[in-house]
């Protein structure tokens, strides 16, 4: 297998690897509400692990249990081999970067960063030195004497990061680390975060609701829904091979066609859909009874759009009328209405400039849609 | 660790509440004591309540106090609202610092000083212009208005400061002249603040002993002045009865007001929820 060569980067594929953070059967209830529902999770040394989900999916609760602010109702949490389930936050070898940053308003930047070291009784000289180093790393040396309210949002974010990292935690927990930043700053900070993580080799556990952020940052993503993991995998796995319709829709967008399996073998499946009347040929097998109801998911950018009908292949073909064109400059999104009225979304790169003010595909054009057998996924739930 | 802390907090809370309420509870219990000597229990009785209702002196004092309280509350609310408006919405004007000082100072000024200075003012005015010829209900009311309006001004000020100015700006943008905006927008929004200011002024006036003692004249005894002259030298069972009535009236009032406020708040939350679900239905 080709994965074999990449084993070093992907400890989760190695059955022998010792997980650094081990969450086993953790449930958290608040009254009658179950925020986290019997989850298991292994995070490995050096990972940049993202927990992704909508609000109320339990991702923040899980993070808070790792930090020690909430105790699990049942289950256990091990960090670096030690049972942390009931250890208070101030005795855990992890630190957290808060969504609001939670900078102490009455202390200067320097004092904020030094706070944790003082609590550990590190000697004065060393505190000074480590704080200075850390401020240099986040490029805030000249702001050391300022109070948090005298800083911009991005600077505050870096103070929060420095404050959490200066203690050299075994793992850094980040709650929506970029949530409070504007879009431009966010893009820049993403890469800074990745660089810092790379430099220090600290395990990062990030909670976010922003899928783009999760895709860029992570080694692995855990998509959460209603207190459970919907899927855990690398960004590529999550995007290209979603396991459920929820995941397919949550990360990016996907066109769904409902149908029944008419042919199922080891290397391909044929799915027949009545509305729109069409046959789908997918080049991976699913072990499921013939005739079962399934969904075929196709990403908008994997669909070819053309004005003339493609010659070969009878499968993976639809035609319809363009109802909307969203011109984004680099790409255009077409909303194509197919036979039964369903809208299919197609994204197409604009490789050539419009000629005489006219785009290749425009409103009310009749177009043909097609895709490769390898471009679609069959989903059973 | 957290357990220990919350146990500590809980015990201090219980102690504090007991500290606040136990004296009042005993006051109430002893009002039902038959014995003439308050501390000696002589069996349950309503004797002192009957005595209280028969006392013309107490009725007179109560009526006087209520009259003063009503006038005070009304005028103090008016003046205090004007002062609050001036402070928040009028920006800089000449003598603003002095004005701010004069509004906050009465809140913390020791009563003996306020009382003494007002009395000396009334005497001086009496000598100079012949008014006030006699001290009594008028002088007490004026004194009460002076410190009550400061409380109202502070309430109005904080309400105005919390109120987004864009409502008023929107009204102006839609063509409202400043006076219309004041009447149509600002005052209605201030109404709850004015109500609490009125209630506060009313109670402050009913509660005041020191200032009234200074500025009152012969024959004008407010209820606190009467109570004070009776209890100075020791416990009086009929005063226990009076205290019980006052405590019960106030408690019922405060609890009812609190309940109403809570219900209003819940209603608003429900309305908002309904509005939200309606929106979802419409868009779906």
């Amino acid at each position, binding site marked *: 297998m080709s994965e074999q060569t990449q084993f070093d980067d992907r400890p989760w594929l190695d059955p022998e690897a010792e997980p650094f953070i081990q969450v086993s059967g953790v449930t958290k209830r608040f009254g009658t509400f179950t925020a986290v529902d019997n989850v298991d999770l292994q995070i490995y040394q050096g990972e940049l692990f993202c927990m992704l989900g909508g609000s109320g999916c339990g991702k923040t609760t899980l993070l808070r249990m790792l*930090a020690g602010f909430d105790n699990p109702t049942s289950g256990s949490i091990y960090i670096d081999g030690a049972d942390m389930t009931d250890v208070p936050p101030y005795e855990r070898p992890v630190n957290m970067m808060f969504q609001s940053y939670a900078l102490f308003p009455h202390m200067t930047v320097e004092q904020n960063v030094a706070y944790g070291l003082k609590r550990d009784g590190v000697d004065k000289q060393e505190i000074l030195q480590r704080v200075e180093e850390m401020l240099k790393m986040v490029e805030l040396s000249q702001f050391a004497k300022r109070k948090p309210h005298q800083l911009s949002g991005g600077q505050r974010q870096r103070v929060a990061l420095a404050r959490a990292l200066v203690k050299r935690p075994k793992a850094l927990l980040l709650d929506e680390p970029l949530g409070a930043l504007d879009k431009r700053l966010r893009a820049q900070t993403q890469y800074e975060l990745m660089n810092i993580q790379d430099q220090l080799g600290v395990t990062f556990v990030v909670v976010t609701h922003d899928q783009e952020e999760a895709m860029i940052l992570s080694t692995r993503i855990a998509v959460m829904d209603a207190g459970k993991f919907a899927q855990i995998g690398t960004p590529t796995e999550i995007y290209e091979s979603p396991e459920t319709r929820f995941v397919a829709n949550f990360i990016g967008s996907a066109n769904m066609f409902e149908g029944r399996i008419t042919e199922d073998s080891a290397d391909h499946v044929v799915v027949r859909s009545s509305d729109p009347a069409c046959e789908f040929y997918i080049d991976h097998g699913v072990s499921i009874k013939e005739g079962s109801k399934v969904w075929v998911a196709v990403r908008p950018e994997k669909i070819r759009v053309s004005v003339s009908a493609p010659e070969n292949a009878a499968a993976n073909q639809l035609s319809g009328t363009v109802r909307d064109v969203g011109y984004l400059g680099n790409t255009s999104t077409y909303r194509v209405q197919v036979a039964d009225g369903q809208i299919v979304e197609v994204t197409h790169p604009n490789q050539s400039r419009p000629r005489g003010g006219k785009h290749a595909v425009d409103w009310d054009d009749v177009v043909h849609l097609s895709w490769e057998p390898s471009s679609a996924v069959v989903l059973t739930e | 660790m*957290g357990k220990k802390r919350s146990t500590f907090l809980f015990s201090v809370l219980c102690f504090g509440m007991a500290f606040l309420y136990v004296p009042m509870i005993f006051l109430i219990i002893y009002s039902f004591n038959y014995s003439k000597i308050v501390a000696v229990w002589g069996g349950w009785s309503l004797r002192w309540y009957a005595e209280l209702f028969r006392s013309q002196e107490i009725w007179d004092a109560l009526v006087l106090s209520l009259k003063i309280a009503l006038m005070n509350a009304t005028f103090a609310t008016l003046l205090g609202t004007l002062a609050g408006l001036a402070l928040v919405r009028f920006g800089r004007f000449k003598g603003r610092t002095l004005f701010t000082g004069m509004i906050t100072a009465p809140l913390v000024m020791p009563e003996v000083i306020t009382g003494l200075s007002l009395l000396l003012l009334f005497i001086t005015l009496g000598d100079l212009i012949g008014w006030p010829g006699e001290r009594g209900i008028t002088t007490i009311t004026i004194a009460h208005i002076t410190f009550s309006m400061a409380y109202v001004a502070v309430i109005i000020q904080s309400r105005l400061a919390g109120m987004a100015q864009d409502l008023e700006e929107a009204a*102006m943008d839609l063509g409202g002249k400043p006076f219309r905006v004041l009447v149509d927008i600002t005052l209605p929004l201030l109404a709850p603040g004015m109500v609490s200011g009125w209630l506060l002024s009313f109670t402050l006036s009913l*509660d005041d002993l020191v200032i009234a003692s200074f500025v009152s004249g012969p024959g004008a005894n407010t209820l606190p002045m009467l109570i004070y002259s009776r209890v100075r030298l020791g416990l009086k069972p009929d005063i226990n009865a009076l205290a019980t009535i006052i405590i019960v009236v106030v408690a019922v009032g405060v609890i009812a007001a609190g309940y109403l406020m809570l219900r209003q708040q819940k209603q608003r939350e429900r309305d908002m929820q309904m509005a939200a679900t309606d929106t979802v239905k419409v868009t779906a």
Partner: protein
Amino acid sequence: MSSILSAYAAQLQHRAQSGWRSIVVFVPYIWLFVFFLAPFLIVLKISLAESLIASPPFSPLFEWTEEGVLTLQLVFDNYSYLWEDDLYVKTYLNSIKISTISTMLCLILGYPIAYAIVRSSPTTKNILLMMIILPFWTSFLLRVYAWMGLLADQGTINSFLVWLGVIDAPIRMMYSEFAVYVGIVYTYVPFMILPLYANMEKLDITLHEAAADLGARPVTTFLTITLPLTSPGILAGSLLVFIPATGEFVIPDLLGGGNVLMIGRVLYNEFNSNHDWPVAAAVAIVLLFVLVIPMMIYQHVQSRESEG
């Protein structure tokens, strides 16, 4: 955008400044000027007059001499009298001592209560707040009176202790400084709790979590985060107790009797029993001087608070 709008509003305001707008400012202004500021000037004036056995019992300050010249006569006798009679000095010092200790007691009791209220669930919070405010709406005088019943020689506490057999004869509690402390703490503790509560309510709970996350134990978190961040509330509450307690009259009069020297009571008696107006006025002016700094600090704290 908003600055343009507010500039526009300011212009409108300016244009309409005349007429009804000046009434809004002037009516309360004049009222406070006549009934709050002017009286102080009169007190100041009388404190500089000579006391006479007459009505009014003081010498006029301005006098037309026979030649038709207006003369101003200032007498500092009243102030030197206050200074020379060590009863007054002692009383001022004792008032400050009593109000300082009472303020600290209020803080010690009020702080954890305010903290407990902030930490409770919304419904409990409302009920507890109402319970703190409720005594404030009942008569202050009657609340002091309630303690007379508890503390008297034949009062509830003594009777109870005798009945228990803890003591044989009643302990003397009334007419002592102890009784005054109890009275002041009892009546003023809500004034400590409410500003503290308002301050703590704004405190961001994640700051506590951040401190714990960085290795601070609960006690350290309290000392390094909670306490410094609640200092504005502590200051406001302390001043709200200290200032009126220093000039308090009812509590020392009813619970302290003649045994406890407090300046409010001395002033009241000087005026109502001794009819020595100039001395009473001088006592008031000195008291005002003692309190003017705390009052200014309070005003400063308040204005900073209201501006956010």
